[in-house]
């Protein structure tokens, strides 16, 4: 319940606890924050203090005492700047305040799909909006069948449970008769999921077993290799900043940290003992150079491999050049990856002589490029060759501690209980399938533009390895092509593969109707025919769990902080309104009200025996104590290391498969994801490396990481973040451009100065950016993170906002793996001739923009707001 912020009550403020995190999956709550409100307004947002209503000893704090030092959780949540600044997102000038319809969309006449992304919008009533939406749904269903409706509902968004933003319509559409689901492929884990699962199993996402690894590192590791890991960026939106504190502590107790990444990322900038710059998406060659050195010197754990692995001889034959006549020496690797051969040798030597853990932040760009399966598997192979699972030798993650409620994903000390709110969740879960009609998200443009496509696997984000050998097609048998799109929390264009193709797909005449629901007018919303206003979570009642912090787990009911802005409703309420119009309200809601759903969330949270509903409401939150005996949980792959027969992996052989049994059986001739992992320079899917013919024309490799100042596409309108120098670069025209990092040597060669507006381009389109000239990047490559707010000059061709994903590869990871390849691709860059652009596209440059919040509503509203 709301309580006075201070004991004196003099401030007149009330404090509410809210989960201000941005994954959007019910198990993945975090970043619990205290929101102080007064007179119907948010006064401030601040870290939540665990000891507000509990004593420290009630929480049974865990403590790591090792090497003469002690590390404990903080007594407050370590929230990121996005959570602190969220007031600006709530009150953003980009908030959609009422339903809107595209001015040249007439459901009874001309629909003008070709104008999507250009036409402006005008205000309409909720009645009119719901009328058009439900009559279009019924019309489409009658004409083509229900699978003509594509539901896109998987983007990252605010974490909500009973007011879920991730697909509140899924259950409704099942009641309605079916639909086609845009199935989000495992975008966070591409290389691990499509590659490493064939090496070491590790369902469902293919990353190594994590249990108790933070403790294992503290006790046993001598060397940490942060490979494409930026724990000072990526975990922020998910779990906050304990990884930062830990990293400082690891240094303090003498654990060496090496960072392998093309850019001096934000973690390397403050934690690295050594930075090894590597050319984007060439890590596979570097791993091979290391393996060569180990095979040559015999400095790997042969005995371990004899009992724990299969197919080592095949791999060795490839590495030593017996298979293709090319020895994968450090010199060979150096020519590809740009790391001096002597450094590769020194690293191989140090890795083999020290207890080494590889640390990943989900892998980032390193496992999200073309052929990402290869660097992912090769990293696992390196770990295997040094005795994977022995103390201090694992693959540790700096994010998603406790992913999908799996005990083996708990890298942090185990809590007494993990609250879980899945039963009360009204959205769509990554586990859920939608047979027979679904399209991998990466194939949505292809499916629509080409009318048909086929692929392997991806029936859900958590589908097991065997599903990768199941063949699917679009349209599925007996199902329709897509003619209508319903999208919620959309950010396809700026986050996925080939955003410009998506723009073309949504303008295709087959798409007769598209509607969006979202709190902010941004990204794919600009393509919609009707836009419905959604409120932010601070305008809703809900219930939340905080499980990712690594400190203490929390369960708390969430109370509305302010009244909904404009005519907005929650995503769930919108689904209920549509259900009502379709005559399905009772079926959809099951007769439960929102307060009942919230209480149901508590009852099914697994914490109902630890705290009563009354006490939970009285205190406002439940802080879960640490489990006794957490220190004794076996770390990472330790059980497998000790006894591979008793604790086999989930691979077909139960062992580490240097030659993957499943790939050998199903795709023996796949050159892009061969049974034995390789360096794949190019293939039928991609030509995105230096030395290919394409690189003559587009000579620069791009690295694109998670953005530091937004969570994917979220928070792009927060003025307090945009004024940070690494967030946006203000051009001479006053527009805040998305920064592209260039090394001073390259900037000079190309006549580009810090602050210039530049064009990044390839045959897939052009993106404008602001030049940020820095020593934080190796020469001859460019860095630009994804997620910038799309602001088309020519939709599908030229973007001013800096949405680099509009020009990333349209093809997937490889032929038989439908992941997205969004980093490690070729472009060229030049100083933009702005006068020429303005002359060619005067209307685009006449669009108003907010000087500090970026493109917003004004540019899109008919006749101004």
């Amino acid at each position, binding site marked *: 319940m709301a309580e006075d912020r201070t004991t*004196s009550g003099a401030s007149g403020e009330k404090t509410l606890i809210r989960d201000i995190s941005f994954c959007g999956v019910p198990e993945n709550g975090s970043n619990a924050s205290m929101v102080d409100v007064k007179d119907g307004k948010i006064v401030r947002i601040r870290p939540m203090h665990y000891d507000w209503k509990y004593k420290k000893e009630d929480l049974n704090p865990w403590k790591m005492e090792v090497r003469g030092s002690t590390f404990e959780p903080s007594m407050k949540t370590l929230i990121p700047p996005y959570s602190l600044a969220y007031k600006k997102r709530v009150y953003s000038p980009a908030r959609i305040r009422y339903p809107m319809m595209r001015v040249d969309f007439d459901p009874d006449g001309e629909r003008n799909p070709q104008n999507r992304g250009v036409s402006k919008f005008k205000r309409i009533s909720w009645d009119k909006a719901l009328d058009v939406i439900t009559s279009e749904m019924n019309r489409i269903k009658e004409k083509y069948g229900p699978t003509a409706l594509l539901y896109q509902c998987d983007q990252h968004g605010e974490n909500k449970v009973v007011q879920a933003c991730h697909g509140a319509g899924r259950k409704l559409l099942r009641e309605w008769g079916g639909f086609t689901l845009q199935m989000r492929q495992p975008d966070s884990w591409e290389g691990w999921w499509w590659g490493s699962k064939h090496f070491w199993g590790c369902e469902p996402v293919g990353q190594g077993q994590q249990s108790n690894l933070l403790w294992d590192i503290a006790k046993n590791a001598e060397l940490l290799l942060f490979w494409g890991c930026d724990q*000072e960026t990526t975990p922020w939106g998910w779990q906050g900043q304990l990884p930062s504190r830990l990293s*400082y502590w690891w240094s303090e107790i003498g654990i060496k940290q090496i960072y392998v990444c093309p850019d001096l990322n*934000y973690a390397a900038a403050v934690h690295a003992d050594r930075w090894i710059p590597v050319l984007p998406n060439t890590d596979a060659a570097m791993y091979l150079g290391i393996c060569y050195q180990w095979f040559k010197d015999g400095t790997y754990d042969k005995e371990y491999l004899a009992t724990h692995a299969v197919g080592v001889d095949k791999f060795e034959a490839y590495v030593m050049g017996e298979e293709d006549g090319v020895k994968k020496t450090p010199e060979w690797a150096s020519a590809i990856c740009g790391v001096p051969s002597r450094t590769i040798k020194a690293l191989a030597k140090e890795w083999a002589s020290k207890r080494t853990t590889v640390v990943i932040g989900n892998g980032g760009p390193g496992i999200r490029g073309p052929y990402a399966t290869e660097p992912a598997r090769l990293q696992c192979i390196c770990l295997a060759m040094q005795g994977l699972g022995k103390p201090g030798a694992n693959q540790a993650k700096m994010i998603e501690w406790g992913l999908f409620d799996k005990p083996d994903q708990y890298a942090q000390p185990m809590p007494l209980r993990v609250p879980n709110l899945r039963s009360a969740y009204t959205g769509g879960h990554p586990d859920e399938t939608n047979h027979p009609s679904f399209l991998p998200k990466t194939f949505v443009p292809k499916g629509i533009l080409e009318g048909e496509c086929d692929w392997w696997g991806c029936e859900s984000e958590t589908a097991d390895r065997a599903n990768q050998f199941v063949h699917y097609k679009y349209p599925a048998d007996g199902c329709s092509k897509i003619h209508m799109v319903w999208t919620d929390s959309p950010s396809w264009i700026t986050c996925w593969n080939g955003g410009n193709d998506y723009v073309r797909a949504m303008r295709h005449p087959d798409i007769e109707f598209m509607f969006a629901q979202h709190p902010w007018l941004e990204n794919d919303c600009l393509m919609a025919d009707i836009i419905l206003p959604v409120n932010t979570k601070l305008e809703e009642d809900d219930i939340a769990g905080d499980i990712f912090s690594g400190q203490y787990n929390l369960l708390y009911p969430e109370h509305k902080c302010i009244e909904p802005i404009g005519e907005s409703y929650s995503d769930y309420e919108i689904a209920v309104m549509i259900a009502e119009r379709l005559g399905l309200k009772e079926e959809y809601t099951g007769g439960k009200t929102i307060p009942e759903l919230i209480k149901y969330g508590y009852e099914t949270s697994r914490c109902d025996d630890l705290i009563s509903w009354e006490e939970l409401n009285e205190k406002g939150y439940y802080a879960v104590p640490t489990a006794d005996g957490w220190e004794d949980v076996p770390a990472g792959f330790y059980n497998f290391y000790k006894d591979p027969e008793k604790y086999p992996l989930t691979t077909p052989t139960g062992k580490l498969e240097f030659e993957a049994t499943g790939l050998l059986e199903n795709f023996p001739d796949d050159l892009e994801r061969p049974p034995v992992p390789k360096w794949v320079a190019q293939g039928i899917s991609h030509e995105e490396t230096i030395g290919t013919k394409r690189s003559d024309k587009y000579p620069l490799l791009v690295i694109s990481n998670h953005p530091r100042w937004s969570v994917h596409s979220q928070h792009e309108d927060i003025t307090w973040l945009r004024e940070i120098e*690494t967030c946006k670069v203000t051009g001479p025209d006053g527009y805040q451009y998305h920064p592209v990092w260039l090394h001073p040597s390259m900037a000079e060669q190309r006549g580009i100065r810090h602050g210039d507006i530049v064009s990044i381009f390839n045959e897939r389109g052009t993106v404008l950016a602001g030049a940020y000239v820095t020593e934080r990047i190796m020469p001859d490559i460019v860095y630009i993170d994804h997620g910038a707010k799309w602001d088309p000059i020519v939709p599908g061709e030229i973007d001013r906002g800096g949405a680099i994903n509009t020009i990333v590869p349209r093809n997937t990871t490889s032929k038989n793996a439908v992941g997205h390849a969004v980093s490690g691709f070729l472009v060229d860059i030049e100083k933009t001739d702005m006068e020429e652009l303005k002359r060619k596209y005067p209307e685009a440059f006449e669009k108003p923009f907010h000087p500090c919040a970026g493109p917003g509503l004004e540019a899109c509203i008919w006749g101004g707001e």
Partner: protein
Amino acid sequence: MMGKVLVIDLDICNGCYNCQVACKDEHVGNDWSPIAKPQPDTGQFWNKITDMVRGQVPKVKVTYLHSICQHCDEAPCIPACNVNAIYKRDDGAVIIDPARCRGNQLCLSACPYEDVIYFNDSLNIAQKCTFCAHLLDDGWTEPRCVDACPTGAFRFGDDSDPEIKELIAKAEPLKPGLDVKPRVYHIGLPKPFIAGAVFEPDVDECTEAARVTAQKVGNGRVYEATTDSYGDFWLRDVEPGEYTILVEKTGYLPQKMGPVDARKDINVGDIAVWKA
């Protein structure tokens, strides 16, 4: 006088900008009169961070510098104000009274620090950090920036507190030459490094355990380091200036280079050595 102090430890500042953002969250759009009127939404920072990128590829580090009112006990801004709008509280905080300020801007030129006092054109007043005195008066133990700091880089407390005293002992004032008695202390203020790597081109190996000596041109001051298994050496916290570099290893020909300019952080590059 006794009172509150702020200690900023740059060695554990991860540059998350929480302090800068929390300051905005507290002061933009909120009127905390009589302590402070609202801060403009953008462009002014009562607690400003600057990214200092140090060195050259691949010997690069980032240190995050902080500009904030130092709440000096002998604050030059107080006597400089000709309407007596600036005062010192019993807890040490220096406050510009927004009701008394007439916008004469004399404090801006009197302040010996950069990016501390801002002039708010629309309100016609000078503004700066208040240590969140309105919150301290309401029972808070620390300002917003300190509450928001995830790593403990910002610490706030009484200068009589033993823990704070211990921190102060490790800290230094931002501008040691000034006699203004600031109440903000800094740990880890950046001083230049000289870094590089040593290698043997003949065998294409990094050279471990080479002794690297940097000698300052002029006063002859010497800094030494030994190369690690990557051949890397880091001479940290050197006195700014020009240096000659000497690389030595038993059985190898000594190599000299320089002078190199270490007025700022410098990566002198990869230095080749040959067997004698």
